[in-house]
């Protein structure tokens, strides 16, 4: 019949999406050294690009009552707090364990990415145990439905949002903000890694992120 047994069913997230997860982990390490002063504008930029590219979804999310959704990737060090409602979409990194929200979606990053890209739907969300939903279930369903109405290619989204980061680099250099420059360079490296995945490139990036971290830490009192 159409439906295969559980064992044969290797759903999208069961492949785990290791590359995306590794890149996201590096990006989050970078974000931590960069701090919110540098990180928040990048996230705001991502929201703006999303609203411009997907007006239908942005409108649907803005029509919701003001509310927050905590996205908690269990295999990454940071969570993402989404604010929905009249002010439009706002994204912030957060410490998932210390953050409260109206609704929470928890799972491995790969599964969450499938959700964001519309690879799994609102019903399937509940048929699998690799995602946990808590709080306002309707909010999560609304978010999922809004995203599914779009043809979202997360790589393209990040590429569009990251475009100015490249330009941001030299500008930051003028102001002698060494950290910002290195962060920007490394970010654009991460971007390339997603677009042209190669294991060696990822290893090199990992070393680069570590260098940025140690430089910043050595300057801290």
């Amino acid at each position, binding site marked *: 019949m159409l*439906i295969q047994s559980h064992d044969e069913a290797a759903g999208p997230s069961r492949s785990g999406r290791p590359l995306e997860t590794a890149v996201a982990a590096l990006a989050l390490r970078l974000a931590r050294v960069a701090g919110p002063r540098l990180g928040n504008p990048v996230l705001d930029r991502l929201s703006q690009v999303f609203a411009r590219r997907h007006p239908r979804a942005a409108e649907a999310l803005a029509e*919701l009552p003001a509310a927050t959704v905590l996205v908690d990737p269990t295999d990454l060090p940071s969570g993402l707090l989404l604010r929905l409602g009249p002010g439009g979409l706002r994204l912030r990194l957060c410490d998932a364990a210390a953050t409260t929200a109206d609704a929470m979606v928890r799972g491995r990053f790969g599964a969450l990415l499938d959700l964001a890209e*519309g690879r799994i*739907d609102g019903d*399937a969300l509940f*048929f699998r145990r690799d995602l946990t939903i*808590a709080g306002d279930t309707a909010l999560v*369903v609304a978010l999922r439905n809004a995203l599914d109405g779009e043809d979202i290619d997360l790589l393209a989204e990040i590429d569009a949002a990251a475009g100015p980061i490249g330009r941001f680099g030299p500008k930051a250099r003028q102001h002698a903000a060494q950290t910002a420059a290195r962060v920007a360079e490394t970010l654009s490296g991460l971007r390339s890694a997603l677009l042209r995945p190669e294991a060696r490139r990822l290893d090199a990036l990992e070393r680069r992120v570590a260098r940025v971290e140690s430089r910043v830490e050595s300057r801290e009192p």
Partner: protein
Amino acid sequence: MAHFELICPAGTPAALRAAVDAGADAVYCGFRDATNARNFPGLNFSVREMAEGIAYAHGRGRKLFIAINTYPTAGNPGPWHQAVDQAASLGADAVILADYGLLDYAARRHPRLKLHLSVQASAANADAVTLYRDVFGVRRVVLPRVLTVPDIARLTAETGVETEVFVFGGLCPMAEGRCSLSSYATGQSPNRQGVCSPASHVRYEPRGTTLVSRLGDFTINRFEDGEPAGYPTLCKGRFVARGQASYLFEEPTSLNAIALLPELKAAGVRALKIEGRQRGKAYIAAVVGAYRQALDSFDRTGRAEVPQLAPTLADVIEGRRDTTGAYTRGWR
């Protein structure tokens, strides 16, 4: 002999395009309000999106039906009348209605608008269908999921009305449009608000290693660690009767009548319907594509060859099991 018409769901413009591209003969959609029975957060079409959807479908030789299949609220029929008026002016190929008063309105106001009877009207016998045919000029009836194939054959032959049956997706074990289980637990019903077991009243509670799904004030199911969870649709929950916990009303299965294509053809069925306006575009593309392939192959060979869906789809089918439901007598 005419081909089966494949009728596919769309909750968003992206899903509509996916359905058309995957081979739907017609797509059914609703406006973004309580006038349709899938009034879920973030779903459905604005008037402009509906116009674009119709253009997309018509541009590729396909049809678009608009479901206005909740029961208008007493004292406030405006939104439902407006939805029918808009469907007519946008050039929808049919409206899918359930309420007598709204059918009466549509038949009087828009005599050229093609009327389909929604499954929510639960027209389960030839006498009922005859009334809708003779009084409102209904051209097609979407049959409730409580009939056997022989029941369907007799009804189709006797009334001469086109019949459309569900072949895939969520299965209502109850007669549709005659069920207040959801509103008993949540205050919101398919008939009034266009929702069943709405997400706004769903809570998942971890209790030790088990996960409990709650609807309103009631526990609908409990899952052990690792056991696939289900959405707490009331009739697909686990309850205790005669001292035993079981899926008393229906297991969390998905309807799949693909093996019954020859029987449904012999029964005179005109159109096959896929459930799931709330489902994602990836799901819709996969299911519609598989059915398109099966129907094309059936047209050539007269046999129902069951195609393999992508393994990823097994994941998104409720309970990962399927059933031919009421179409075969053993279900009862």
